[in-house]
């Protein structure tokens, strides 16, 4: 605060006028607010710079092979990040593939078919579930989902061989790309993707529902008026109307799936190297960092993990930037 002038020190009347008392504080207040806004900018650049500095030793030593090699060996200090990087992309993509159709279904259900009295409660429930911390999803995945998945899906699949009339090509595809080195313990790339899908589903459903609600009623009703079925209204009016923002919302969901740590770490199996199939164990960038960072001893190990973090930063930054550009003026949370 600035020093008080003589007339301000004098006894004040009961009703204090909002006069130009403290007008000299105005620029200081503006400066404080501006500084806080700048702090956000500094934080993001600091985040990027610190990841580059921290990961530099690994980038400098391994060069391009950090992105192409799958050898991750803390003992001999040879680090190649291709396994976690590919694992991150696969789990995020598969989880999006699983949750997007359901999310659209839920959003359409809530805006078109749901009885009026149930719309608000179900909508609120979906929004509330979008806020449940990811470690809760991780606990459920580890203790409830994984045993069931192992018993009901993995065990039968591990003894099943494709019938011969499908040909050798399918048999090879099946054993190399789908089954991989399946161990029926409930963990793996697909299990992690399913948990991720369950986790991002409420978020995407809630965002898509908000978007669908922005379609003017008149436009939708006129489509019904010319004899469209609800399916045709959704595919030819609602979705085209919000297309841009909807893609943005999906990208936001993808961003979440890419960077999600706890729900994945519990169940992905945490084996390095390229995943051999959907049922093989694998790792993502986030799960590798979560598992190894606190116990990393060698400097190169720490640097390699931070370098992986930088790669994750670049991927998510690109996805989020596209999402924001597409969402544009809508600015959905």
């Amino acid at each position, binding site marked *: 605060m600035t020093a008080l002038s003589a007339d301000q020190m004098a006894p004040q009347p009961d009703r204090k*006028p909002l006069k*130009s008392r*403290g007008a000299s504080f105005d620029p200081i207040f503006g400066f*404080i*607010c*501006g500084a*806080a*806004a700048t702090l*956000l*900018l500094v*934080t*993001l650049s*600091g*985040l990027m710079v*610190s990841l580059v*500095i*921290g990961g530099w030793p690994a980038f400098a030593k391994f060069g391009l092979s950090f992105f192409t090699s799958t050898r991750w060996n803390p003992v001999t200090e040879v680090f190649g990040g291709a396994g976690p990087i590919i694992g991150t992309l696969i789990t995020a993509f598969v989880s999006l593939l699983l949750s997007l*159709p359901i*999310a659209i*279904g*839920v959003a359409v*259900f809530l805006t*078109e*078919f749901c009885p009026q009295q149930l719309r608000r409660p*179900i909508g*609120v*429930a979906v929004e*509330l579930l979008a*806020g*449940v*911390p*990811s*470690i*809760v999803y991780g*606990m*459920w995945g*580890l*203790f409830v989902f994984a045993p*069931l*998945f192992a018993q*009901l*899906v993995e065990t*039968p699949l591990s003894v099943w061989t494709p019938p011969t009339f499908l040909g050798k090509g399918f048999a090879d595809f099946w054993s190399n790309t789908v089954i991989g080195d399946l161990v029926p313990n409930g963990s793996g790339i697909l299990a992690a993707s399913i948990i991720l899908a*369950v986790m991002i589903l*409420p978020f995407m459903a809630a965002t898509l529902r908000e978007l669908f609600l922005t379609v003017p009623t008149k436009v939708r009703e006129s489509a019904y008026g010319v004899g469209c*079925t*609800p*399916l045709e209204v959704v595919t*030819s009016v609602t979705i085209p109307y919000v297309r841009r923002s909807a893609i943005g919302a999906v990208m936001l969901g993808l961003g979440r799936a890419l*960077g*999600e*740590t*706890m729900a994945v770490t519990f169940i992905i199996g945490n084996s390095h190297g390229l995943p051999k199939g959907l049922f093989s164990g694998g790792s993502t960038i*986030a799960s590798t960092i979560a598992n190894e*960072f606190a116990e990393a001893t060698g400097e190169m190990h720490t640097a390699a993990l931070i370098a992986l973090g930088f790669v994750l*930063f670049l991927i*998510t930054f690109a996805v*989020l930037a596209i999402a*924001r550009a597409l969402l544009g003026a809508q600015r959905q*949370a």
Partner: protein
Amino acid sequence: MIALLGIAFIALIAVIIAAGLISTFGGSLGLRKVANIGFVVFCVGGAVLALSALAAILASLLANGFGGINLAVFTQDTPAPGSTGGLRNAILGSIAMCLEGMVIAIFVGIAAGTWLAEYADRNNYTKTYGSIVRFVNDVLLSAPSILVGLFIYTVLVAKGIPVLSVVSLGHFSGIAGGVALSLLAVPVVTRTTEDVLRLQSRQLRESGVALGAPLWVTIRAILWKAAQGGMITGVLLAFARISGETAPLLFTALNNQFNGLNFKIEDAFGLNAPTANIPVVIFNFALSAYDDWRRLAWVGSLLIAAAVLGINILVRVLSAEQKRS
């Protein structure tokens, strides 16, 4: 059950593809009606599938966690395997670090949001700068939280990294954990503050000018007061968000078997040391081989989920009341 869900999922996808084909290439009224019925079934099925999966999660949380809640959970510290104990140190540590994060976030977030809403539109330069800051805030809002943890680790915890070692505390600490959490809370507060301030009418701003008040008094005494409800909502949402975050605490606050918190300000309230917190305790205990540790992990998950859902419901009740008044 899962196999059934999987088959149902594949069937739903097949139905939607068939329905999409029919609706794209046209068809008789009968076909269109059939396609539409398939679509309705898909949407309702999707909603049922989603809600039942989510109900299953909450139910298993209650089934596994509720039985473990007793007085010892709140009065004893995390135990060694085989002995009895509770989560007292973790609960206190989580509360302390969330409060630290929220104090930082409230100051920075409200100031930054105010700048974006009230100062950014002054001229073309500030407008450009404002849109950059807004974009950066949006990126921070959805940045992976584990990267925030890495960032705070390199700045406040690590020793060996050049340039950054100037500010580093050099060890794991609750302070670093709180700062990491604040980075996740600031964007939420900034965003809601800007949004609610922009909703305030021009007349309200002019009323301050008409009274001859300086801009900062207008903002503080009139605009903040009018936008109070929305700003509190933002703060509560930010609190709900950080209270369940695990990843940023894994290598900033780490963990602690004991409760080091105190009320001595010269000791930084005991936060200048590794600090226990519920999410990291859940992470460590869930992956352990001891039944009593796993039981405590379930209890911790239930407590966190209840806290987050409780805050979110409170926010809804508060904003519903505002709309009414």
